[in-house]
């Protein structure tokens, strides 16, 4: 679970780092990805794992389009940019939920076939559900890719654009292109997480909300703009969650992970690996 949190959070972290604001529609991007996986699976009957690149690409497109159509405009406002962004993405989230309900109805769907679906790997006493194992591996791989991208010059340009979105023009960087790519990448990461999640989680218009909050906490815990931080924090949160549920009341497991988050933040106000 931790890795999925981490990957969802990584996408958020990219976007966060970029536009320097909470993307409230993040959970809805996840929801879209899950629906994309579900619909494609239903239409084609292809194994969901094979759909990974398709959905990732699709979400990449969605991310780019969202940026170009909406976020770029939100970024260009002169006044109270921070709040405008919060509420533009919040409005978008509500809109997307409504859209999903409109297009797919409120029902719950799930993917029931595929190589990994419903299988379990038994290693002695320990049972490893195959979908989760596969999800973890894929997420880890995606993470590696993201980290690599972040180390390239493009990654640096992304950071620079966040720092001063006007000044990058002085050195010939097209901020809209960089940002759109960043949004695309962030969304693609969510897309991958979404497909993997869809192999073992149900899909519904409101599914995003369940993960979004955890993603925010993960990002803040890891430190804004730090991908490695998101990874560490995601794993940590997954563990804390499981431990609280095991040792204390399961209904309090989120309290456990939130408490850890608050404790860490009082000691390290910029998250585990954050710089901003």
């Amino acid at each position, binding site marked *: 679970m931790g890795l999925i949190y981490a990957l969802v959070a990584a996408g958020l972290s990219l976007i966060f780092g970029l536009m320097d604001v909470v993307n409230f529609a993040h959970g809805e991007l996840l929801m879209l990805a899950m629906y994309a996986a579900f619909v494609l699976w239903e239409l084609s009957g292809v194994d969901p794992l094979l759909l990974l690149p398709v959905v990732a690409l699709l979400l990449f497109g969605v991310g780019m389009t969202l940026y170009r159509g909406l976020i770029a405009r939100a970024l260009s406002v002169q006044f109270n940019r921070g709040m405008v962004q919060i509420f533009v993405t919040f409005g978008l989230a509500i809109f997307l939920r409504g859209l999903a309900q409109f297009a797919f109805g409120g029902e719950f769907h799930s993917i029931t076939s595929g190589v990994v679906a419903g299988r379990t790997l038994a290693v002695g006493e320990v049972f490893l559900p195959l979908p989760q194992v596969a999800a973890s591996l894929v997420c880890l791989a995606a993470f590696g890719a993201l980290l690599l991208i972040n180390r390239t010059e493009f990654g640096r340009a992304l950071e620079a654009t966040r720092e001063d979105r006007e000044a990058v023009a002085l050195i010939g960087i097209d901020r809209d292109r960089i940002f759109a790519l960043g949004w695309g990448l962030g969304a693609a990461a969510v897309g991958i997480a979404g497909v993997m999640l869809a192999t073992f989680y149900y899909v519904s218009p*409101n599914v995003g909300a369940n993960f979004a909050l955890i993603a925010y906490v993960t990002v803040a815990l890891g430190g804004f703009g730090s991908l490695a931080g998101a990874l560490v924090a995601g794993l940590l949160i997954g563990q804390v969650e499981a431990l609280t549920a095991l040792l204390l009341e399961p*209904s309090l497991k989120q309290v456990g992970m939130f408490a850890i988050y608050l404790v860490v933040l009082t000691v390290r106000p910029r998250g585990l690996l954050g710089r901003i």
Partner: protein
Amino acid sequence: AEEVVIGAIYPMSGNAAPIGNDAKAALEATAELINGTHPPIPMLMGNGGGLPALGGAKIRVVMADHQNDPQKARAEAERLITQEKVPVLIGSYTSATAATISQVAERYEVPYISMDNSSPSLHRRGLKWYFRTSPHDEMFTEAMFDFFRDIGKKTGRPVKSVALIYEDSIFGVDSSNVQRKLAQEAGIRVAAEVKYRANSPSLSTEAQRLKAAGADVVMPTSYTNDAILMLRAMNEIGYHPRAIMAQAAGFQEPDFIKASGALAEGVFSRSSYAGDAVKARPAIPAVNAAYRARSGKDLNDNTARQVTSLQVLADAINRAGAANPAAIRKALTETAVPGVQLIVPWKGVRFDESGQNVEATPVIQQITSGVYRTVYPFDIASVEAQWNVGG
């Protein structure tokens, strides 16, 4: 002829929207059966042609959306009463909204028929205008334990322990309280009690706990999304409990069966509806067909209760002879409908002082080949229960 407008308040958007949509279809189908012309159906108000005592007046159901927000439920109730001038309210699926709707009904002195709310606390507040056709969780749970007792006797493999898993809502907590109490009374050990966060991203740890408890029967109380997740989580860790006895809700949803596929096979659930009890309830095929025409689905626990409640209400309005709240209330208190006139397998409908239908007797069903089949009470069972406990 004129119309009698009835206000229904359901979640039409948000998490529980599918419930609201189904309710809409069920209520409209029922209204059509009551109003329309068709060969008589052997049930209460099954002759069509509207309400005879009101000159064939038609009933019309207007839907309002409460989004599972008590404040909005309250506002919608007020709107329906004052603006749509409805003489009676129906709804509302979730307990929190029923709490505020019943309050509005009380203040405006309009009857409120709680059709599918099962929280036992609802009818215990001394309300005069509150009626509940459906069984509540205590009645449901009693049926479960009756079933345990009887099947134990029948097969010689009694239930010795149960594990409770329930969501941290009013529904889950109430349900678990009754289950705990009845288990104690029946001398059944409660091996584990797992209260979990509704809509969690994962229920693996919870499943782990259940596995560790290793009880004869797992008794979940959950809505659809968690129900789906729970079965998967148990499967993932290789836990296949000998029996699952669900407090309906999510486990009764078609979405649940569809999404869970083979995993759902063999799950027991209490129900207030037995779609397969066609012999005892001859009206089922016709009503089901009418509902299916609108929704593409078969009637289930919720929708059947909605159909029944609307029948009962229509009958009461008809007996009242006027669409005015006080008269309807009076007629409701005098309701006495025998079970055979319904589509649900209850003894009948008769409200006590608190507005609770005391003759709503639930059944136990089991998922067999992807559909729920009634297995208890044995006299209306359509199939034999698959009972693995102690085997």
